[in-house]
C-alpha cells in the first residue's frame, strides 16, 4: 500500500533521483558535495556527526561518526560494587533511565536469583511506563521542532514536567533517580503520589489528542512525514532495528508482549503497528504508544498489590532504618552491603527489555566478587543508527532531518 501523494510531492515527481552522469550533449554533469552535519547541530538530537555526500539536494551517502560523549560507563561499572553501578548505568540513555536500571537490575537478579515482590514489580511498571511517556514527549517536542512546529515543544515539555514532578515525589530526584534497586525499588510511593498520578492519567490522553490535532492537520508536517524514507521489515530486521521503528514497518515485535518481564503479562494493552514503515508511521506508532502506556499505568495502579516493595533478603537489600537500632543482624548486613556489597556467583546473563527505542539488553559477567567483571548494554539507539544511511540514501536532505527526528536516537545511549 502506498500512501496518498500530495500535490506538492507530485510536482517533485518530475525530478529524477537517479545519479546524473556527465552528458556531453546537454553539458549536465554531477558534482558530489561532502557536507559535514554536526556534531553540534540541533537537528542531530545530541552530539551526532554525519558526513553526508550530496548531489545537489539529494543524499547519496551518509557516514555517522559517533563517540563524542563516550564516557566509559561500562568500564566505570567494573570498578564499583553491584548496587553502586545503578547510578552510572542510568546515565547512559539519559531519557530512559528507569529502563537502564531495569535491564541492569534484571540481569543481576537473574544471576543472584533474587525474587522481586509483586508490589515492586508493579511499581517498576508504573515508573517505566511514565518514563516511556516522558521519553516520547521529548521525542515529539524536539521532532516537531525539527519540522518547524515551535509550539509543540512547549506543550510536550509541560507534560514532561508533570512526570518529572511525579518522579521527584517517589524518589526525590527528577532525573537519574536510582529508584530501582536489586530486588525491588528504593522506597514505597509516598502519600499523594496516587492522586497526582491519577490526575495526570486523566489529562494525558486528551493532551495526546490535542497534539495529534495540532500535527496531523498540518500540511507541512504531513508532507514531510508521509511516504518519506520507508524501509521494509526485512531490511530493518537485518540491520538489527527494534522498537517503534520495527513496529512502524508492520512487525508487532514487543518484548513486553512476547517475553513479559516484571509482570507485564498482567496488563491488557495493545501493540500499535504501522503499515508501510515511512516516517509518518513511525510518528503514529509512538503517538499511539502514549495511550497504551496510560492504560498500563492505570491497570497497575488499580491492581497495585500490598506487600513489601523490596526483597526481604537482607543479603541483597538494605535493612529498614528502624531495624538498625535494635537488631545486630541488621547492622551487620547494613555494614557488609554498604562497604563491600553483595557477591554474585560466577556466571553470565543477558537480560533484554523493551525500552522506548527498542530492545535494551544488559549483559553481565560475574566472577564471584562483589564487582561485575563486565557490563555491556545493547543500546537500541546504537544499533538503530545503522539504518540511517539505508533509509535516507537517494532522498532529499530535508527528509534526512525528518528521518533523524523519527529515528529518535539518544546519543548518551549510543556512546555510553
Amino acid at each position, binding site marked *: 500500500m502506498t500512501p496518498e501523494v500530495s500535490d506538492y510531492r507530485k510536482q517533485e515527481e518530475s525530478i529524477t533521483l537517479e545519479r546524473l552522469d556527465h552528458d556531453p550533449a546537454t553539458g549536465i554533469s554531477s558534482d558530489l558535495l561532502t557536507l559535514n552535519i554536526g556534531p553540534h547541530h540541533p537537528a542531530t538530537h545530541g552530539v551526532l556527526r554525519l558526513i553526508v555526500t550530496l548531489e545537489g539536494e539529494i543524499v547519496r551517502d551518509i557516514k555517522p561518526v559517533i563517540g563524542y560523549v*563516550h564516557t566509559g560507563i561500562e568500564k566505570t561499572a567494573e570498578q564499583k560494587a553491584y548496587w553502586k553501578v545503578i547510578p552510572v548505568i542510568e546515565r547512559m540513555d539519559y531519557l530512559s533511565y528507569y529502563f537502564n536500571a531495569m535491564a541492569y537490575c534484571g540481569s543481576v537478579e537473574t544471576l543472584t536469583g533474587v525474587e522481586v515482590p509483586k508490589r515492586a514489580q508493579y511499581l517498576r511498571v508504573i515508573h517505566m511506563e511514565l518514563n516511556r511517556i516522558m521519553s516520547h514527549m521529548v521525542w515529539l517536542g524536539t521532532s516537531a521542532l525539527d519540522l518547524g512546529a515551535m509550539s509543540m515543544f512547549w506543550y510536550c515539555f509541560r507534560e514532561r514536567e508533570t512526570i518529572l514532578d511525579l518522579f521527584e515525589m517517589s524518589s526525590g530526584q527528577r532525573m537519574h533517580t536510582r529508584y530501582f534497586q536489586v530486588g525491588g525499588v528504593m522506597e514505597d510511593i509516598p502519600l499523594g503520589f496516587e492522586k497526582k498520578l491519577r490526575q495526570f492519567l486523566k489529562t494525558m490522553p486528551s493532551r495526546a489528542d490535542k497534539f495529534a490535532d495540532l500535527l496531523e492537520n498540518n500540511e507541512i508536517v504531513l508532507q514531510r512525514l508521509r511516504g518519506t524514507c520507508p524501509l521494509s521489515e526485512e531490511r530493518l*530486521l*537485518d540491520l538489527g532495528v527494534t522498537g517503534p521503528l520495527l513496529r512502524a514497518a508492520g512487525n508487532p515485535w514487543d518484548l513486553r508482549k512476547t517475553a513479559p518481564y516484571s509482570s507485564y503479562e498482567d496488563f491488557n494493552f495493545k501493540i500499535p503497528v504501522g503499515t508501510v514503515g515511512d516516517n509518518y508511521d513511525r510518528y503514529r506508532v509512538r503517538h499511539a504508544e502514549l495511550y497504551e502506556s496510560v492504560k498500563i499505568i492505570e491497570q497497575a495502579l488499580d491492581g497495585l498489590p500490598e506487600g513489601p516493595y523490596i526483597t526481604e533478603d537482607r543479603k541483597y537489600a538494605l535493612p529498614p532504618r528502624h531495624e538498625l537500632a535494635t537488631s545486630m543482624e541488621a547492622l551487620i548486613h547494613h555494614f557488609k552491603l554498604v562497604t563491600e556489597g553483595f557477591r554474585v556467583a560466577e556466571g*553470565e546473563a543477558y537480560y*533484554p527489555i523493551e525500552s522506548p527505542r527498542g530492545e535494551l539488553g544488559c549483559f553481565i559477567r560475574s566472577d564471584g566478587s562483589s564487582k561485575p567483571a563486565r557490563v555491556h548494554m*545493547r543500546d537500541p539507539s546504537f544499533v538503530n*543508527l*545503522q539504518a540511517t544511511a539505508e533509509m535516507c540514501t537517494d532522498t532529499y536532505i530535508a527528509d534526512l532531518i525528518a528521518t533523524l527526528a523519527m529515528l529518535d536516537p539518544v546519543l548518551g545511549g549510543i556512546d555510553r
Partner: protein
Amino acid sequence: MPDATGLELIAGEIRDSAPGAVISTKHDRGRAEIEITPESVHPVVAMLKERGYTFLASLHGLDYWPDEPRLGVIYELLDMKTVDRISVKTRVTVENPTVASVIDLWSGADHPEREVFDMFGVVFEGHPDLRRILMPEDYEGHPQRRDFPVGGEEVIFTYNEKTMPGWTE
C-alpha cells in the same frame, strides 16, 4: 531459551555439520550457551540462522583476564517466531585475536563489531570498514580490556595546555 536437552540437540547438529567446532555447552540460570572455536564462528552462526535464529540481538566482547584465551565474543541470537534465545561464545587469544565477520549474514553487525574491535582489539576478518567507533581515531590501546588501567589520563585545561605533550604544536 532452549531447555538443556534442546541445547544438546543443537550442539549435536553443530557437531555433525562442523566436527570439532563445539568446545562446550552451558545451561545456567536461564541462559543457553554454546562455546565454539573461533575458526568455526561463521559457519556455525550461519547454520543457526538457517535453523531459525534469524535475529542478531546483540554482539559484544568481554575479557577473561587473567584466564586464557583471554578475549571473548558473544553472539546473542534470537528466534522471533518461538521467542527463543541462544548465546554463541568464542574465545580468542590476545596474540591472535581474529574472528570472521558476520556482516554478510546481518548488516546490523557493523557497529557492534566495530565496538568490539575498538574496546577489545578483536579483529573481524571480512569487515569492510573496521575502524574505531567510540574512541578517537588516534587512540592507542583497547580500554575495555581488564588490564587497561583506569584513570591516569591527563585532561587538558587552560592551566596545563602548555605542558600537555603534542597539544599546542
